[in-house]
């Protein structure tokens, strides 16, 4: 069982994720440079937050064409697990692995806060350790986190239960349908703007996020038995 964390020029949450997977969960973890082409040893791909390629053109637009994303698309098409957090979510939408796009926050400024998040779908391999409709607290830190999709796509997401997380109470960034995170149809791929890896170490006072990594880990182990 191995986690692979993709590292682009400008990624800055890669080590935070490794702190969780290797440091807290004690699982083998490989940092995967964006020029690499092979993910065959990896069970779970994590695309971390940051500012890949300086967010030039659009967030995630250039990272999407890096060699490792081609390998990530193969990984996902093989039914394996992947998660994109913050900039990673933006990259997943640019790559077409998740629908929609993330645009400039409604109120323009970069938001750095802790916000309540409702777990709308606890049936995915990533969220099954949460209660249905449980409200958790996770940090957010983004300037382009406003989820946008056309009405037809939004309706499909809702009909297929692909909305995984919603902002509870105030909508911080103007996301349509208060969307904070979504998944693909099978639930193996999750994209989310909040940072579960920043809410994992008890020393930081909030461990609401670690269940996501524990859940996917259990899922991989179970699939191997």
């Amino acid at each position: 069982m191995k986690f692979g964390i993709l590292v682009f020029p400008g990624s800055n949450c890669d080590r935070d994720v490794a702190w969780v997977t290797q440091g807290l969960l004690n699982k083998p973890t490989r940092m995967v440079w964006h020029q690499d082409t092979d993910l065959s040893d990896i069970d779970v791909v994590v695309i971390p937050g940051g500012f890949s390629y300086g967010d030039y053109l659009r967030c995630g637009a250039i990272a999407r064409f890096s060699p490792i994303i081609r390998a990530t698309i193969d990984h996902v098409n093989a039914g394996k697990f992947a998660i994109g957090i913050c900039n990673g979510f933006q990259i997943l939408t640019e790559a077409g692995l998740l629908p929609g796009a993330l645009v400039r926050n409604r109120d323009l400024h970069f938001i750095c806060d802790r916000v309540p998040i409702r777990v709308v779908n606890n049936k995915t391999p990533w969220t099954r350790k949460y209660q249905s409709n449980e409200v958790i607290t996770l940090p957010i830190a983004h300037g382009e986190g406003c989820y946008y999709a056309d009405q037809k796509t939004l309706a499909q997401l809702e009909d297929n239960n692909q909305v995984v997380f919603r902002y509870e109470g105030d909508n911080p960034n103007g996301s349509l349908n208060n969307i904070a995170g979504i998944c693909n149809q099978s639930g193996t791929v999750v994209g989310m703007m909040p940072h579960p890896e920043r809410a994992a170490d008890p020393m930081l006072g909030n461990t609401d996020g670690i269940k996501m990594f524990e859940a996917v880990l259990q899922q991989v182990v179970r699939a191997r038995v």
Partner: protein
Amino acid sequence: MGSFVAQTFQAKVYVTLRPSVLDPAGTAVRSGVQQMGYQNVEQIRIGKYIEVTLQAADEAEAVQQLDQICDRILANPVIETYRFDLTPLSETATTTAH
């Protein structure tokens, strides 16, 4: 070895947000403009302007490639539309290996 005549073109590419996508930056600039006294300004929307210089055998090939480049990376069709104006700059003789 063979040679062909390639032309250099310049494309002026305009990428704009689809009308259904909110443009909070444009709205903020509009309120600034209105505060300056231009109360008649109704709407401002901000897009991107990109200059691309490329060589192609002819205009049709240049247009085809630019459409691909715009669709794949310069614009995100989920939120944006694009258009471009193409201008021939010069004719260049290029030698290529076959």
